[in-house]
């Protein structure tokens, strides 16, 4: 059934699908880059918008996945199909780490602001740790961690079958990201409509009442946290693959603020708004950063303050609702 508020989603994806016909590789690569960040944002929207749990440290999972992918790929570059199973293994590591952190948080009875602080502390410590690994003693197998400058030279995602070699780059990477985003958006909507999603939404209002209906809220929050870590990991791996490098600053204080800004400004309660708003905001940041990254960051900070103060629902979601009511409500 075609619902009217799906019209935006469908039109945006139609545009995304035909973009490669109209633009050259430079733009395609840039748009790929913008879309890479949507996954970490969707993960945050899942845990924050649906679960009411605000994690400030999603970048910890982003970085962990990126570094894991780099370390595994470099160490096992000779083994068959490393470009396929290395990202999958890195994702598994990230999801498990997410589950462990989630276990400590939710079974430890930590809630509200404290979750933000603990997750932020985790990402900052990871950053600090990676930044001091410049010395030659910091190697994992064949892979130098390389401190502040970060890791590079990892083989890309891809596979070689006989003569054919497929690397996830350029237009292939672009379509892979678009289809992955479509699939994950669909999956997130399914989760939202499922009993699992219902429990999550309800636990945002009253945790004890949900438990008193016989649901294991802690377990569900832990699983959700792990899923959101996984989504952050998808971004981390795609980012590492896209640029061929990963640095500690991707887990730093400024980097970890970005997903929160994108999600808050777009509208944390609607996955599509988050997807679309994230692309838009990363694009704006990139354009402004040409004149110096600090100006882009100041603007993002301003957006965050103004949105929380005046548009707590999120600007993209608000516009989407406005447009839906204006043009599509005559029935």
């Amino acid at each position, binding site marked *: 059934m075609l619902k009217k508020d799906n019209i935006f989603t469908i039109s945006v994806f139609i545009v995304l699908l035909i973009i490669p016909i109209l633009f050259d590789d430079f733009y395609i690569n840039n748009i790929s880059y913008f879309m890479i960040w949507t996954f970490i944002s969707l993960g945050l929207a899942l845990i924050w918008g649906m679960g009411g749990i605000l994690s400030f440290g999603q970048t910890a999972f982003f970085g962990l996945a990126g570094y894991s992918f780099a370390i595994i790929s470099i160490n096992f570059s000779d083994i068959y199909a490393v470009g396929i199973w290395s990202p999958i293994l890195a994702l598994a590591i990230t999801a498990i780490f997410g589950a462990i952190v989630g276990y400590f948080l939710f079974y430890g009875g930590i809630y509200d602001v404290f979750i933000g602080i603990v997750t932020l502390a985790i990402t900052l410590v990871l950053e600090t740790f990676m930044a001091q690994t410049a010395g030659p003693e910091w190697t994992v197998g064949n892979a130098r961690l390389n401190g502040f400058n970060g890791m590079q030279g990892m083989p890309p995602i891809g596979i070689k079958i006989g003569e054919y070699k497929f690397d996830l780059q350029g237009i292939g990477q672009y379509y892979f990201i678009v289809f992955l985003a479509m699939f994950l958006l669909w999956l997130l909507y399914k989760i939202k409509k499922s*009993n699992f999603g*219902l*429990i999550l*939404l*309800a636990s*945002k*209002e*009253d945790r*004890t*009442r*949900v*438990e*008193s*209906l*016989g*649901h*294991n*809220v802690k377990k569900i929050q832990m699983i959700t946290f792990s899923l959101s870590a996984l989504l952050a990991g998808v971004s981390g791996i795609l980012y590492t693959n896209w640029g061929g490098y990963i640095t500690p600053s991707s887990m730093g204080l400024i980097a970890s603020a970005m997903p929160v800004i994108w999600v808050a400004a777009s509208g944390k309660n609607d996955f599509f708004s988050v997807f679309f708003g994230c692309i838009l905001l990363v694009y704006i940041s990139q354009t402004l950063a040409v004149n110096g990254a600090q100006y882009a960051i100041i603007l993002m900070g301003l957006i965050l303050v103004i949105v929380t103060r005046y548009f707590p629902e999120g600007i993209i979601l608000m516009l989407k609702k406005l447009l839906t009511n204006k043009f599509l409500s005559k029935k």
Partner: protein
Amino acid sequence: MNLLELNFVSKKFGGFTAVDNVSLKINRGDIRFIIGPNGAGKSTLFKMIIGVHNLNSGQVLFNNQNIEKLSLNERINLGIGVKFQAPSVFSELTVKENLILAIKSKFNDEIFSFLEKFGLEKDQDVLAGDLSHGKKQWLDIALSTISRPELVFLDEPTAGLSFEETKKTGKIIQDLNGEGVTFVIVEHNMEILKQIAKSVSVLHLGKLFFEGSPKEVLSNKEVTNIYLGIL
């Protein structure tokens, strides 16, 4: 056979003993009212049984199984239903979604029959937060009973309800009791007690003060005195 058995349970908050060595047995099929003046320990006792508060000492047996170490949701899944004092429905979910959450399956006939039983069939797609106070209470009771638990705790199910609404609530509880659900009800409202109680326990200052049939309790002078604040 006893469905629920409390053996010498106590709960202290700091230096204050809220529940003091209470022992209680609830038979299958009972509608037990727990009454007592404010501060008698009713709500604390109820929260200890379901696991919101830990016990300082004593035992809680449900179907002869020790449950005092289990978490809230684990106790519920043994076949216990709970309604807390203030109506706590999920205001951002629809009535139907609230019930789906409680029954742990997709929309089905059972949900529809409950909607009818509680007179909520026209409100199934309304957000629970937009319901009237009375309907919130009913939805809350529906949430605690729809998974067909053996034992249901209701904390003040008729608070804020009109006379007519109270009568209807009593009727619904009696119907469910007829279908085999045992009830433990914490109440202030004597009207519904007269209407449906099968047995009554009186708490006073954290201790079990009196136990008997509704008639015995209502005609007992000391119980009346407690309520009047003389004792």
